[in-house]
Each structure stands twice: as structure tokens, then as C-alpha cells.
């Protein structure tokens, strides 16, 4: 019978790991961040309100990612092929042809890079809202921002991404 903590770990691990993977370029760093956050969660979990766990975890995860970036600035800019392969594999759809699959993979690769190149806090807001489907209120709590500011940052982030991706996405399918 799993303990409440084990259940919570299985529930939240995907959220934590996904944010770290899209925020950082290095999968190993993302694993280290995930482990660190879950260990901290173990230390604090019995003091957290259930309704605030999700926001607390994302706040701690984001801070841990910042710490990693500060320590390894150069590593954050290195693109790892494994990131792209795993994302493509996980998102593999019913691509009608190998050529289309390759185009999709290329698009996702460039999109991930563009997201990682976004300045903060736009990067965090875009990841949480568009990739992880957080509600505006949850993002506001996690990033300690007013609700309207979250919307503004999301729109600005997507606008910047659109500029980055214009050439790639403007091709006809």
C-alpha cells in the first residue's frame, strides 16, 4: 500500500521533471533538480496544505533551475540531442510519412530551443501555461505575480516566440 508521500511523488514527478527539462538544456541537470525538489518535498510535505502543494513544488523547481543556471551558465546553452529524441518519441503521433515525421521533429526541436532562449519570466510562464496547462491563478501563485501580469507575460512570451519561429512555421505544410 503506497504511503501518501509515495502517491504524491508519482502524481507530481512529471510536472517537476517536465518543467526542469524544458527550462534547462541538460537532461542530467533536470534529473538532479527533480531529485533535489522531491527530497525537499519529503522534508516539508507534512507541513504543506494540499491545495498549495502544486504551486510550492513549481516555485521550488524554478528556483532550483535558476541555481543550476547560475552554477553552469555555459551548460545551459548546450543543446543535447537526447532532449529532442525523447520529446519526439513521447509526442510521436500518427505522422503520415517519414518526411512529415522529420519535419515535425525539426519543428519541435526548434520550438524547444526557442522556449529555452526566452527571457525570464516569459519562459516560465510559457512552459507552465502552454506545455503544462497550469491555470493563470496557479501560475500567479507559483511565480508570485499578479494574475493580469501573468496574462501579459504569456502574450509577450508567445509574441517573441512567434518572431523566433516565423521562418520555420511560416512554411506551408
Amino acid at each position, binding site marked *: 500500500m503506497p504511503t501518501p508521500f509515495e502517491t504524491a511523488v508519482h502524481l507530481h*514527478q512529471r510536472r517537476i521533471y517536465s518543467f526542469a527539462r524544458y527550462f534547462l538544456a541538460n537532461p542530467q541537470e533536470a534529473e538532479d533538480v527533480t531529485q533535489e525538489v*522531491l*527530497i525537499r518535498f519529503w522534508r516539508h510535505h507534512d507541513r504543506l496544505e494540499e491545495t498549495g502543494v502544486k504551486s510550492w513544488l513549481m516555485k521550488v523547481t524554478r528556483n532550483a533551475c535558476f541555481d543550476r543556471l547560475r552554477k553552469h551558465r555555459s551548460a545551459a546553452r548546450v543543446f543535447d540531442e537526447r532532449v529532442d529524441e525523447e520529446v519526439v518519441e513521447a509526442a510521436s503521433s500518427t505522422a503520415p510519412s517519414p518526411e512529415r515525421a522529420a519535419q515535425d521533429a525539426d519543428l519541435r526541436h526548434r520550438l524547444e530551443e526557442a522556449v529555452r532562449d526566452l527571457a525570464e519570466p516569459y519562459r516560465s510562464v510559457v512552459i507552465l501555461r502552454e506545455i503544462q496547462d497550469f491555470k493563470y491563478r496557479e501560475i500567479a501563485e507559483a511565480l508570485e505575480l499578479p494574475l493580469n501580469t501573468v496574462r501579459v507575460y*504569456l502574450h509577450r512570451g508567445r509574441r517573441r516566440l512567434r518572431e523566433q519561429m516565423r521562418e520555420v*512555421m511560416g512554411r506551408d505544410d
Partner: protein
Amino acid sequence: MTTEAHVDCAAVLERLEELLDGDLHDVAETESGVPAIRRHLDACPECAAELALAATLRRELRALPELDAPDALIDRVLDATVRAAEPVPVPGRWAAFRRSLEGLLPAPARWAAATLAAAALAILVLVPRSHGPTPDPANDPELARAIVEARFALAYLGDLGRGAGVEIRDQVLRDRLVAPTVRGLLGPSGAREPADAAPSTYNPGGSGRPAPLSDDPPPSAPRRS
């Protein structure tokens, strides 16, 4: 007859993301109101293409998958947290003890952790209690458990040592680890001389597994080295 407001491309492009998300709530017939923007989009192919691009981008972002952390990472975390806190049967405690250290600590830190554990538990085993009758493991479950834990720690030290090509002699453990630790914690008056201490149950030349309980006399009795 209502006068329709007109809006230019710059104003429309500025509000495209809001329009896409349904965050434009003003339906009034104003310069930047939704009806005016929609009329502009109907009439301006460039802005319409830009809206389509924004919609495609949002769709592609939302298609990026969330990813599961590797199973091994989750196992490591659970081994170090909730599983380490669970009471386990004695035969399984050795595996749990090794796992809890190996999952978290590099080899040098495991040496230190096992040494400290061995020292702390050896004190409990080898130092006589200052008051009351001499403890007998057969009648004292806590003491029996402490003896088992001390053996695990000492055997683990032996395993680590052999893994590093180092043999830890029984005398070294007793003279360099247990005795100084006892003196340091209890002071000269509370410590036994190493030669008087009960023989260590660590078996340095053996397989590294804990030695069986011996028939040693209780700690208060004089010993032969």
C-alpha cells in the same frame, strides 16, 4: 445606423494573442474592440496570416509533451525517504542499509557514514551502562537490535575496505575507532581500556558478513586480549 470603428494593423497585431486566448472582453464598438478587430482581419490578409501563425504556434506549444522522470530516479528518492523510514525485518535491513547509503552518498561519504554508525553503535554494545544490571542481549531487544546494526555497519566497512583493496584489522577498529570514540564521549573515567573491552564481533578475514553472537562474558568481567 451605427458608425463602424476602424482599427489599423499595428493595433490588431498588438492584440492578437489576447484575441486568440479570448481575453479581449470589450465587445463594444470601439477602435480596439473585438468587432473592429474582426472586421480588420476579414479585410487584411497579412494580419489574418499573422493570426493563423499565432494560432499554429500555440497549438504546437500545447502539443509538446510532459515527460516522466526516469523510474530509477523515483526509486532513488523513495529509497532515501519513505522506504528508509519504514521498519524492516532484520534480514532485510542489510539491503536497506546499503541502498540508503548507496543511493545518496559517494563512496568516501559512505565510508564516513558507516564508520560513524559503527562507532556510535559499538559504544552502545561495548561500553557498560553506569547504573543497573549488566544488559543481556537475549533479554533486551533494543540492545540486540543495536548489536545487529553495529555488525551491519562494521561488515559494510569491511565490504567497502575490500572494494578499495584495504583490509581493516580487528585491532585497528578497536584501537583506532572504538576506544578513542569512547574516550572522547565519556572521558577517561567512563571508558574501558581497549584490552579490557569485549572482543569485536567483526570478522575481518571472513566474507564480510556479521560474525555470529559469541559466548563472551558480559562487559564488566575482566577479559583476556
